[in-house]
């Protein structure tokens, strides 16, 4: 799986890391039980500060996407640990729907757009 870090983006690097790993898990690029690189290894490879990578991993752990073990390191969580949909995710979806509506899209067009995105994500 390829991670891309955009240093000119307004999104903080830890959030970019977190988002890409979440997308990677959702799209099947990272499978349950798969070992993730250690915080140190990912920081060495990317040049990003170790604290930033650590912050992203802690967030992913809190959200239930990954599990960490002192010996095994970080691994992608199994389905049993499936995280609940957060309130803020629903709110963000609601906001995006409003933006699409204000952009002039009909319910039919929004549904078609969502279906295309779902197909691209392998859902």
């Amino acid at each position, binding site marked *: 799986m390829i991670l891309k870090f*955009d240093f000119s983006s307004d999104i903080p690097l830890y959030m970019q890391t977190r988002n890409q790993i979440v997308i990677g898990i959702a799209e099947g690029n990272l499978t349950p039980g798969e070992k993730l690189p250690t915080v140190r290894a990912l920081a060495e490879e990317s040049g990003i500060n170790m604290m930033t990578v650590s912050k992203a991993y802690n967030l992913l752990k809190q959200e239930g996407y990954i599990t960490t073990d002192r010996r095994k390191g970080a691994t992608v969580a199994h389905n049993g640990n499936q995280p609940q949909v957060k309130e803020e995710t629903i709110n963000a979806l609601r906001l995006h729907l409003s933006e699409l509506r204000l952009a002039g899209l009909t319910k039919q067009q929004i549904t078609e757009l969502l279906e295309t995105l779902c197909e691209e994500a392998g859902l």
Partner: protein
Amino acid sequence: MIGNTVLWLSLIWLPLLLCFMLRNESKFKKNIAVGVTFPFEGRRHPDVLARLERFKKQELWVCVGLVLLALPCLFLNFVNGFTVWFIWLFLCVVVPYIPYVLCNRDLKHIKEANGWKRDLNTEITVDMSVIPDLKWLSPWAFVPAVILAILPMLWDRDFSLMYMLDAIFVILFWLSYRYLFRSKAEKVDDNVEVTQALTRMRQNQWGKMWLLCAYAMAALNIGISVTKYNHMGMIIVTVIFGVVLTAAAIYIEMRTRKLQEKLTADSGKGYYIDDDDKWLGGIVYYNPNDSRLVINDRVGTNSGVNLAKPMGKVLYALIVILLLTIPFWGLFIDFGGDLTLEMTDSQLLISDEYTVERNEILQVTLLEELPAITRIFGTGLPEYLAGDFSSKEYGKLKVCLDPTSPPFVLIKTPDTVYLAGTRDQAVTEEIYNALK
């Protein structure tokens, strides 16, 4: 003349080596030549090949020029010639890089003109499948070298300090091995196997280099302890140490470069990594988005530092200061000046080095020949010896003399033995007669 010849022989290989290493940069390794990355088709472009050929010729001429420039140095006065030598040394370190930087600039122009330059972007891409999980040599691999380095202390106490310092160096070599290498994938394109092979190979070569340094240091200590009172033997041991270590380091570096060249011979077709915008002049790494100070050089085995980090700026400033001051180093070498022996009513003054209370002198001897002595700490030039020395016959000595100007006065006090002399035979004999 002997001093000059030794100096000449010990320095003349410098421009040869530097020019050889820089000429090797013209061969494509990891798609890079003279610090510029090219796609596969660019590597065979006539303009690129012609510029690289010109670079090789320029380096050759620079090398010939520097060697010719050193020839008159053979006939210089040893003392006054040092400043000339250091100016030459400065030219050796700086001049070969001028054709390199010019070639780097021209190649970048060719790259841009042919549309091979990638847009400068602020994005970093990390392939999680190739992040290395490197296995490091155990510290135990270095422990025997530490033990061997301090082993001579069992039979030789005179050089204890040196043996201890060398053992500390061995520990520093392990620390350098472990912490001056960045665990980063050597990615050149999307070929995972090549990336993994390049990464493992580089780390292996890095380990070999530091292990070699550690055991060479231990061998040097044992060699010195064995040849302690044999001046020629000690020189031979030191020269062998220097030659073997340098030759092995060059071999490891060239082997790494050869393997990098071989493994990436077909690389650069389609997707390829291009970090040129992060390397100033193809030599200095500058990347404010990289939080790491220590970085791996693009080709070969060595490491470097990131100029964008505050500590990187400090280190580069120190290197620049060190380089710019090379021509003045000669002014700070102590050549002994006028070696003097002066007597007052109560004291004997040996140059500016030692003061001996006359009432403490137990015995004075005039030596027509210099005994076999070995330097423990101090200056050891062909025409000036000063500091702490050791002799099989007299034990530890405080020395201040010109070995080419006998006779010498050996002065014993309850605590210390002094060996001194001047460059004037009559003065030395006069002092001896007054003391005996």
